[in-house]
C-alpha cells in the first residue's frame, strides 16, 4: 500500500486501517457465534484498485463467480460487494461446513444461502465497526446473491458508483479456520466522500 493513498479523501493508512482491524474482530466474533466454533479474520491489506482491474483480481471477467452485494444506507451511503470465484466459494463452503477441502463441488440452495449469510454477517459487522468508530449510522440492506460472470457482477458496483469512481477500496480479508486459511476480497464503493461525512 502506498503511504500517500487516500480513499474518498481519507488517508488509507490511518483511519481505515484502524477500522479494518476493529471490523475484522467484530466480524470474526459474529461468524464464530453463528458457526459455533472459532473463526478468526484478519485484514492483511487495504488498497485502492482501478475499477478496470477489478475483474482480473478475481479470475478475469468471464470467470464464474458468486457475488454478494449489500447496499448501505444512513450517514454514509455506499455499497459493499464480495466476489468469490466458484473455486473460492467451494472452499469457503467447505470451511463453513467443516467439510474436507474439495468436498463441495457445486452450489445448491443451501450453499448459496450459507455464502449469502457469511457475506451478510461479515459486511454488516464490518459496517458496525465503522459506525462505532465514527458515530455514523450505517444500515446495510439484506444481501443479494448473484451467480454469474465476474464482469457482469462487477457491473452492479460500477453502476452503483455512478460509473464515476475510477478506483475502489479493496479489503483483502483472510478467514482462518482451525486447519486452513482462505483469502477473500471485499470491495467497498462509497456513494459520497467519506471525508464529507466528518470522521474524527
Amino acid at each position, binding site marked *: 500500500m502506498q503511504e500517500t493513498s487516500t480513499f474518498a479523501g481519507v488517508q488509507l493508512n490511518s483511519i481505515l486501517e484502524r477500522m479494518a482491524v476493529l471490523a475484522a474482530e467484530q466480524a470474526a466474533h459474529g461468524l464464530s457465534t453463528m458457526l459455533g466454533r472459532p473463526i478468526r479474520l484478519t485484514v492483511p491489506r487495504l488498497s485502492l484498485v482501478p475499477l*478496470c482491474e477489478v475483474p482480473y483480481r478475481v479470475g*478475469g471477467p468471464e470467470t464464474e463467480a458468486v457475488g454478494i452485494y449489500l447496499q448501505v444506507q444512513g450517514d454514509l451511503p455506499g455499497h459493499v460487494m464480495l466476489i468469490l470465484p466458484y473455486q473460492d466459494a467451494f472452499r469457503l463452503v467447505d470451511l463453513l461446513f467443516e467439510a474436507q477441502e474439495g468436498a463441495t463441488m457445486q452450489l445448491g440452495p443451501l450453499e448459496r444461502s450459507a455464502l449469502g449469510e457469511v457475506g451478510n454477517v461479515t459486511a454488516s459487522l464490518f459496517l458496525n465497526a465503522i459506525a462505532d468508530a465514527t458515530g455514523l449510522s450505517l444500515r446495510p440492506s439484506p444481501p443479494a446473491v448473484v451467480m454469474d460472470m*465476474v*464482469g457482469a*457482477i462487477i*457491473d452492479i458496483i460500477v453502476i*452503483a458508483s455512478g460509473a464515476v469512481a475510477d478506483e475502489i477500496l479493496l479489503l483483502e480479508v483472510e478467514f482462518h479456520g482451525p486447519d486452513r486459511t482462505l483469502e477473500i476480497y471485499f470491495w467497498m464503493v462509497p456513494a459520497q466522500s467519506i471525508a464529507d461525512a466528518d470522521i474524527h
Partner: protein
Amino acid sequence: MAPNQKEALGQPAALEANVKSAGLGQLVVSNDPAETLIAYGLGSCVGVIAYDPTAKVGGLLHAVLPQHRNGDPNLAKYIDTGIPLLLKEMAKLGARKANCLLYVVGGAEMLQVAGLANGFNIGSKNVQMARAVAEREGLRLKEVDVGGNSGRTVKLEMQTGRVTVRTLGRGERTL
C-alpha cells in the same frame, strides 16, 4: 486462493493471439480478418457491434451508461457518445456507415432483490438509448440479444462477421 493460481486464471483472453477485448468504457476496431473482437461478461453494460461486410471492418463498444456526462473525456463509456465514436474510428479503417450492420447485446438487470433495484434499471435504459442512437444515425439494427438477468460475452469474428453470444449455463449461440 494461492497467488500463483490467481495469476494462472487472470486475463486469459487478453493473452490469446488475435483477440482484442473491450473493457468497461472502451471500444476496439479492426480490419484484420484474423482478429476477433470480444467484450467479456456484459451485465447491465451494453456491447454495441458494428460490422461493414464490404470493407470487412468491425468495431465493438463496451458502454456502461446511456448518456454522456458533461466533462467526461471518455466518450466510449456512454452509449450516446460511444456509438458515433465507434463509427468514426471504423470510418478511419474504411468502413461506411450505410453498409454497417449493428448488433446490440447486454443490458441485463443483475439485481432482482426488492428494494435494492432503486435507481438502477440501467440495463434497459442502456438498450433504449442504443436503439435510439441507431435510429438517429440511420444504422441497420441487425440483431439484439438484450435484457434478462444473466451476463453475456459477445464476440465478433472479423473474417466472417459472425457474432456470437455466450451466457453461463446456456452456452454460445450465433446471432
